[in-house]
């Protein structure tokens, strides 16, 4: 089993940070929902490096990202199924 990043929407949407989207090595993997004002993860692309966790914890000090075993992710967004979305709402 492998882990992927999961972003706490409540915490994230209370900030306008967007730092994790800038430091994720992968393209269009941490996306940003303009409507909800939160970052979110394309679980089918996350390689589980945890860089975003360090950025959120140490640089942004928001502690909104946790690594979660892939089988415990609820309603994970898969970009390969629907393509790029400006907003999931």
């Amino acid at each position, binding site marked *: 089993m492998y882990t992927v990043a999961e972003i706490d929407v409540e915490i994230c949407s209370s900030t306008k940070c967007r730092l994790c989207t800038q430091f994720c*090595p992968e393209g269009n993997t941490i996306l940003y929902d303009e409507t909800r004002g939160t970052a979110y993860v394309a679980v089918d692309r996350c390689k589980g490096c*945890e860089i975003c966790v360090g950025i959120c914890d140490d640089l942004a000090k928001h502690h909104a990202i946790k690594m979660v075993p892939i089988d415990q992710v609820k309603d994970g967004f898969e970009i390969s199924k629907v393509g790029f979305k400006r907003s999931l709402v």
Partner: protein
Amino acid sequence: MSLKTIQAAPGFQDYLPKEYQDLLEDGPFFQQRKVSELGSFKEAIEEHPMCAGCAMTLFIRLVYVGLPSLEHTVICGTAGCGRLAISQGAVPFVYGNYGDTNAVATGLKRGLDIRFKDQPKDVVVMAGDGGLADIGFHAVMHSWFRKEKFTTIMLDNEVYGNTGGQDSGMTQKGMVMKMAPTGKKFEKMDMLGLAKTAGVAYTARISPTNPTRVANTVRKAVLIAREVGPTFIQAYTSCNIEYAIPTPKVMDDAREVEKDRYGYLEYFSDEAKTYWEESEKERKRLRKAEK
């Protein structure tokens, strides 16, 4: 080479792959995207087999944001890790034989300038330290002596990461690698000094600790190359595999190495300095006029 040539005929767009449609609708073409917009637009590069947590992957991703006009750009590369990503980007990519990146780029740039007189076309070489400082060194340096108008970006992971850990000319002296068990024998090559001596118009040394700065530096290098002469970016892009950096620590390493020996450096030739200051003034004037 232009969005027009890749646009679908009306009525047929819906039958193209979703990724293609997304690039046309929400992609980075015909507008300079900002690093702060990442996550809100369809990127030119995604879904490649680079290792998890690779700083080179991050840097390459940011390069595609910094390029001033993706739809008028050709990237040249060669063997090495980076090409695993770059070859899958939505920008034409020429995979040269090992050693010839900057010779190929020279021909391309000159040919494009002849073919497209009224449309600037950017050529960017992006390859590793092994590809540019060792195997392609000759062509790199001679493209600089000849003052060829394109940008060379070195993805400097200080090792042949793709072939099991041989030391390159850019590896630090004394470093023990899997395939350099008695340690690297000589000093890390001073490519920035060589670039300066060779008459490169703009040179920058950078680590991927500040994404906006990466994109701005790339944009600057490409714009100066377009008008003045050769430009060079040397980027620290650690190999977490060969240097055994746990992926959650990759950015810590980048910050430490930056502080220690890879701090941000910029060098402008006089001509490049004048050009850049004037073009910045002009851009400010235009922005003001728009408001």
